[in-house]
Structure formats: C-alpha cells, structure tokens
C-alpha cells in the first residue's frame, strides 16, 4: 500500500473508532457510568476530533492527498528543562543507591534482604568479629534488638567494645568499660555456665579497670569452664600479667 493509502486507512479507522466511541459515550451516560460534566466535555472533544478526521478524508477524496498536520514546534526550553530534571533525578538516585549499598558477602543476595533469625545474624557477626569489629558490633546490636537476652551477643558486643576502646582517651575508656562490664555481668547473670563472659569480664577488669583481684576471680572461673580455644588463647596470654600484678 502506498503511504497515502495507509494514511487514509488509518483516518478511516480513526473515524470509525471516534464514531463508536461517541455511541459508547452516550450509552455510558445513559446508564449512569458517566456524569453530565464528563459526558459533555468528552463529547465535545470526540465531536471536534471526528470533524477533523472527516474533513481530512473528504479532502483526500477530493484531491487524492491527505492534508498533513502542521508539525508541532518543539520547545527547546521545555526539552532542556525535562532533560535537566531527568539528569538531576538520575544523579540523585545514583548517589542514593551508592550510599545505600554495602559489601556483599558470600551467600548474600544482590538486592534486597530478608529479616534474618538471630542464628544467621550471629554467624555473620562471628565471621566479622575481628575483621570489622564495628560491623560486628552492629550485628550483635541487631541480635539484641530481636532477643535482648542473647548471651552470645551481650558477651561479644561487650568484648569488641572493650577492644576498640583500648587506645581511646580515659573518659571514653571508662564509658566503654562501664557499658561492657554491665553487659558481661548481665550475660553471666543469665547463664553463669557460659565461659566466654567470665573470660572477657576478667580481661576487661584487668585492662580497663586495673582490677587484678576481680580479674583473677573471673579468669579462674573461665578456665574451669573449658572456654573455646580462641578465647583460651586470650586468657593464657594475660594470666601471667594478672598474677604478677597481684604479687606486687
């Protein structure tokens, strides 16, 4: 089909569509799907569009040419503003998504996440304990938000807090000690058989509070309760120092 013929067929289709739409509109109005205002405004629009299409068809029939519509002038200003808005939005979204992204660990999904159980959060925290103590503290805090009495989270959050405050000023060290010892004592109160809490309380008392007597008591309980090898390593390295301090 020639281009003109295609255009004519399209116009005739358009005419049929508009005439049917007008009939539908009247039906819809009659049955109450459309109120008077919508009916009137849509009818006017359909009528004017139908008139234009019929005029174009008649024009074709008269001189075999379909009158071309005047091309709309593209507004440079509007295009520029639209482009600018899109670019600004895309940049902001890009910045935001970059700011919200984080390291992907093995087993993590590329996007989204589900609310983990304390077991899975604890296993992630354990994996990052000494690699990224701050991240581990956040994970333990997450566990405690779900389960405030979680002994492992209480113990290890306190221990990591004590560790990262070692090189801080006295005031910060004191605050860290206070918070860490409270959590460790709470863990011991919840389960006095858990060796790690005794071990870390002992080390903390010695390193941060300068209390060899208290430290010795906790380290003795710790050793008696067969702590994990990793924790035992910490304890073994400090026992001699504690004994020496007690003898002074």
């Amino acid at each position, binding site marked *: 089909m020639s281009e003109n*013929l*295609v*255009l*004519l*067929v*399209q116009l*005739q*289709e*358009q005419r*049929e*569509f508009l005439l*049917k*739409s007008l*009939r*539908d509109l009247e*039906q*819809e109005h*009659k*049955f*109450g*799907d459309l*109120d008077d*205002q*919508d009916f009137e*405004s*849509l009818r006017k*629009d359909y009528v004017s*569009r139908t008139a*234009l299409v019929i005029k174009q*068809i008649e024009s074709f*029939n008269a001189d075999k040419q379909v009158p071309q*519509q005047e*091309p*709309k002038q593209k507004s440079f200003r509007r295009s520029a503003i639209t482009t600018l808005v899109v670019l600004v*939005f*895309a940049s902001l*979204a890009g910045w*935001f*998504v970059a700011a*919200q*992204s*984080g*390291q*992907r660990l093995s087993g*993590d*999904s*590329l*996007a*989204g*996440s*589900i*609310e*983990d*159980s*304390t*077991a899975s959060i604890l296993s992630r925290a354990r994996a990052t304990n000494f690699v990224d103590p701050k991240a581990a503290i956040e994970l333990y805090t997450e566990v405690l938000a*779900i*389960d405030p*009495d*979680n002994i492992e989270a209480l113990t290890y959050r306190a221990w990591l807090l004590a560790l990262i405050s070692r090189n801080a000023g006295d005031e910060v060290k004191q605050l860290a000690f206070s918070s860490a010892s409270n959590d460790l004592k709470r863990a011991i109160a919840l389960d006095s058989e858990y060796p790690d809490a005794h071990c870390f309380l002992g080390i903390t008392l010695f390193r941060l509070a300068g209390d060899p007597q208290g430290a010795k008591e906790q380290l003795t309980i710790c050793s008696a309760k067969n702590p994990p090898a990793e924790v035992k390593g910490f304890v073994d390295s400090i026992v001699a120092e504690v004994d020496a301090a007690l003898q002074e």
Partner: protein
Amino acid sequence: MLASAGISGTIGRAFLLVGFIGAIFGAFAAVAGARRNDQQIIRLIPRFATLIFAAAVGAFAAMEYAMITRDFSLAYVQKVGSWSTPALYNFAAVWSALEGSILMWVLILAGYTMAVAIWVRKRMQDVIATWALGVMFIVCAFFFLVSYFPADPFALGPPGVLDGPGPNPLLQNHILVMFHPPILYLGYVGVTVPFAFAIAALITGRVGEGWLVATRRWSLFAWGFLTFGIALGSWWSYEVLGWSGVWAWDPVENASLLPWITGTAYIHSVLVQERRGMLRVWNISLLVATFSLTILGTFLTRSGVLNSVHAFSESGIGAWFLAMFAVVLVVSVGLIGWRGDKLRSPGVIDSPLSREAAFLANNVLFAIFAFVVLLGTVFPLIIEALQDRQIAVGAPFFNKLSMPIGLALLTLMAIAPVLPWRKASTETLRDRLFWPAWCGVAALVASLLLGSYGVAPLLTFTLGGVASGAALRQVVLATRRQGLRGLVGRANGGMIVHLGVILIAVSLGASNSFSKSQELSLVANVEAQFSGHTFELRDVVEVRDDRSISVKALVLVDGKKIYAPAITKYTRIGMNVGTPSVRTSLTTDIYLTLEPPVRQDSNEARIKVFIKPMIMWLWIGTALMAIGTVLAAFPGRRRKPTEPTSAPVEVAKS
C-alpha cells in the same frame, strides 16, 4: 547420541524441533502474507499456530512423562527428580529449574499464539492481525530455539544414575509451587500479545486507537495474571520462607515487579489515549518497556548473574536473552522513531486538574518507581562489571524510596477517580470530594483510636480512607442506577481493583509499622509471655519420611491451640528448611518459627514470635484485585469486546 536417549528425551527434542520449524514457517507466512496480501498464504497461519501449540504440548508432556517415570537418562531429571519426591511436587518439579521453566514458557507462549490465531480467525485479512501473529511466531521461534539448544531439558546426563536429589526443598514444601510459577508466567508471557499488536501497528503505520482497544482485554488479563502471580509469590514467601515478610526486594521478585509497574502504568495511560487520543508514543513505549523487562528479567534471573534464593545455576542462556533484549529494544525504538510523525497526539492536556493530568502524573510516578527498582537491582552488577567490587543494595534503599512513591500514588488514587475529564471546577471538586474526604477523616480518627501513631502509617490510613471513599462513590453511584450490573465494566471493575490495592496498602502500612518480634527460649510446660499472648512448649517431636527429617516444636498459644513450627532437613540435599506456623485472624497474625539449633530429645526450644497486624487484609485485597480485574474485563455498556475496531476499513472509492 539421540539413539541412546530415553524415549521421552527423543520425542521431546523432536517436538521442540517441529515447534521451532513451525514457528519459523509461521513467521514467514505471516510476513509474506501481510506484505503481498496473499490470502492463500494467510490462511495457512492458523495451521502453523496449531502446529506449534501441539508441538509445545507434546514437548511438555514428554518432560512430564520423563519426570513421572523417573527417566534418569535425562540430565534434567537427574537434577530435579527423585524417587522420594511426592507425586504432586514431582509434577511441579518440571518447572523447578531453568530448562523446565523455559519449556513452560514455550508452552504458554504457544498457547497464547494459538489463542490469538483463533481470536482473529475471522479477520485474518487485516494486516495488523497478520503482522501481530508474525511477531508472536518470531518470539515463539526464539523460545523454541533456546529450549532446543542452551536450555535443553532433554539433554542426556551421565549414565548409571538411578536416583536424584529432587527439586530444591523450598519447591517441595508448599502446594503453592503448583500455582505461583504458572500463573506468573501467564502474566509474563501474556504481555507478548499487546506487544505484538503494538509492533504490528507500528509496521503498518496504523497507530490510531484501533489496535489498542482491540487488545485491551489481553493486556488486562496479562496484568491480572501478573498481579495474582506476584501476590501468590508473596504468600509463598510468607508461608514458606519463615521470615514473616511478604516482599524482600530480592532480584527475582524485582524482575517480576518491573513489568508489573510498567504494565500498571499502561492500563491507566491507555484510557487517556482512548478518551483523548493522547500519549500514543508513551503507550507504545510502555508496552515495549513491559515486554523488554520480561526478557531482561529472564536474563537477570535465569543467566546465573544473580545470587538469590530464586536464581538458577549458571547457564549459557544469558547471551541469548541479552541479544533478544537488544533486538527488541533496537527494533521497537527504531519503529517508534520511524513512525514518529504518525504517533503525534492530536490533543493536549487542558488543565492540571483533570483526569488525564492525574493519569499522566500517575505514569510519571510509575516510571520513577520502575527506574528506582531497576537501578537498585542492576546497580551491583554494574559496579561489579566496572570496578570488580561485590556490593549489595539492601532492602532499606527500596523501602526508603518506594514509601514516598507509594504514598504519592495513594494520593492520586484518592483524587483521580473524582476528577472530571478535561477540566475540573472548584464546585465539581467540592461535590465529588465531599464523601471521600469524610472517609479519610473517619479513617484517621479510627486509626488514632485504635492506637496508631507515626506520620507514615497515619498518612497511609488517611489516604487509604479518601481513596476508598472515591472508589466507593463510583461503585455506589453505578450500583444505585444499575443494580449489581453496576459492578461490571472497566470503570467500576477498576474501582474494585482500587479497593483491593487500598486494602493491601493499609495492610502493608500496619504490618510494617506495628509488627513486633521476639525470640523466646521456651522450656517444656513453662509459660512465656510476649505482647499480651502466652506461649507454652508442650513437646519437641521428630517426624521422618523418605526424603526428610522434621523436628517440630509443639507450642500452645494463648492456652487454646497448638501450633507446630518446624525445621526440616532434606536428607538428599542436606538443606535445612524452616516451616513457620501461623495463627491467622482478621486483626493479627501470630507467626512462629523454630530457631536452630534444635534437638528432638530436648525439653527446650527457641521460638521466634512475630505479631503482625492486618496481614489477612493483604490476601483479601489481592482477592478483591482479582475479582475487580475480571469485572473490568467485561464489556459493561461499551462496545462488544470482539468487535474489531482494527478491522480493515473499505478504502473510499475515488
């Protein structure tokens, strides 16, 4: 090699080959028939459609037969089949991995192609219908080819295998595996029909409203299936995954959400084109985007580039789908550019306070929403490709951006239905917003009295009230005039869908803002309390069968009924799967999960308890959306849906 294959494998591959050849011939027949207007060739097209459908049914049946008879000569059966899998899950195992899911795609696509061929059989001389079928045949050929080569479900496996691990335990843990994937695929694949007609309209240059009205119901049903499929996925997530959530912004969930967002924008903006003749380029672009996103989503989730609970193992189909995505985009954008002049809309928006302006705003918001979801999903891939860093974009990104967009959409949903077309006067707005506004006030007061707090939830409930008032106003006016028939038709069915969406929004607002959770260490016969409810561990029991060992904690809730959250170890795969137990009511769900480690001989168990308000309304809202979609698909008082507005018009005699 084929000679040594199991019989089902040989037959299946033969069917796939026949389907591919049939699709290629069908495409040639459609293109040649349309170009030459040769009715003899055109008459062959429905036969090719029948042939490819029969081939797809044959291939799928061969795969089912192989799975049911445990034909372990096939690699796919070795991967997902097992003698110990129950019959129901064994049937569904066919679509539980990459190759089978592509085969299901082939079956559904061939079904749609045949359905379209039947639908247009009386107007096959219309070139739009012929070209549309041509496009569908080309898409069919691509999927048959993918299924024959890189995702061949009938490939032979190593010899001597007598049993397999069975499907992923998450896919043999709930009856929804039978329904969620097929329904989602009906939506995904259904988008091909309006897309094919849009491309046909662009090729023929007949880009008026004819093709669009003709395919309205196809679009609506594809959208409806997609909606229902996504909702079933949420239900599955809630019932099976044990984290108490319905949406995790997982890449595969996002891949299904993206075409839904653009599809939703389309079914709104298409009304503007029908009524005012505007947004022609936009509507065609939305259809192209929706179809392209189904292909992109398939690439993302089936190529192995993602790491998620849904992602299938690495395969060679990534390049195929990426190439298809590129072809679809280049061809579609090229055609839109070619037909640019004809796509120019005759009308303009008269006032920002009009129905069409509200639809436009709705579309801008949906476009932003789609961009945000796409960005968050592919951003880690882009960074990994450019910088070789592995990053993740967590749920907070999506939540932070989707909440304001959701509230803005809810605002539009409250206002748009009462706005008249073209222009609204102050009096009109005052009259039409009177009852919706009071509904909003009532919702706000009720939520405050019930103890709600916080800006976002209160805003959600208030806007939900106004929006439901606006939707109910339309429905009440229609039913007062027409009785129950007033519920039928596009406008009124659409309002029922709106009511469903509002229920979902309110439910999500309530459950996200007011959920509580706590892990309880329960000791047998000792009562624990949380959030006004009591929990008592009665026993920890072990249940064994051929494929799994389940440990169940029997927990008495509020002294009334025993619930049994469990952890099941699937012994062949060595994977633990938690199974939550939920007490459901109209107001609150009590959701229990058993936390590891757990031993059968123990008198203790760690139970995680979630108290989640209004979850039931999420499912009620979904049902309402499904009902509304069906009602909207009925013609109401408008033209008969089968009346071909795209039928050829006799050329005026000169």
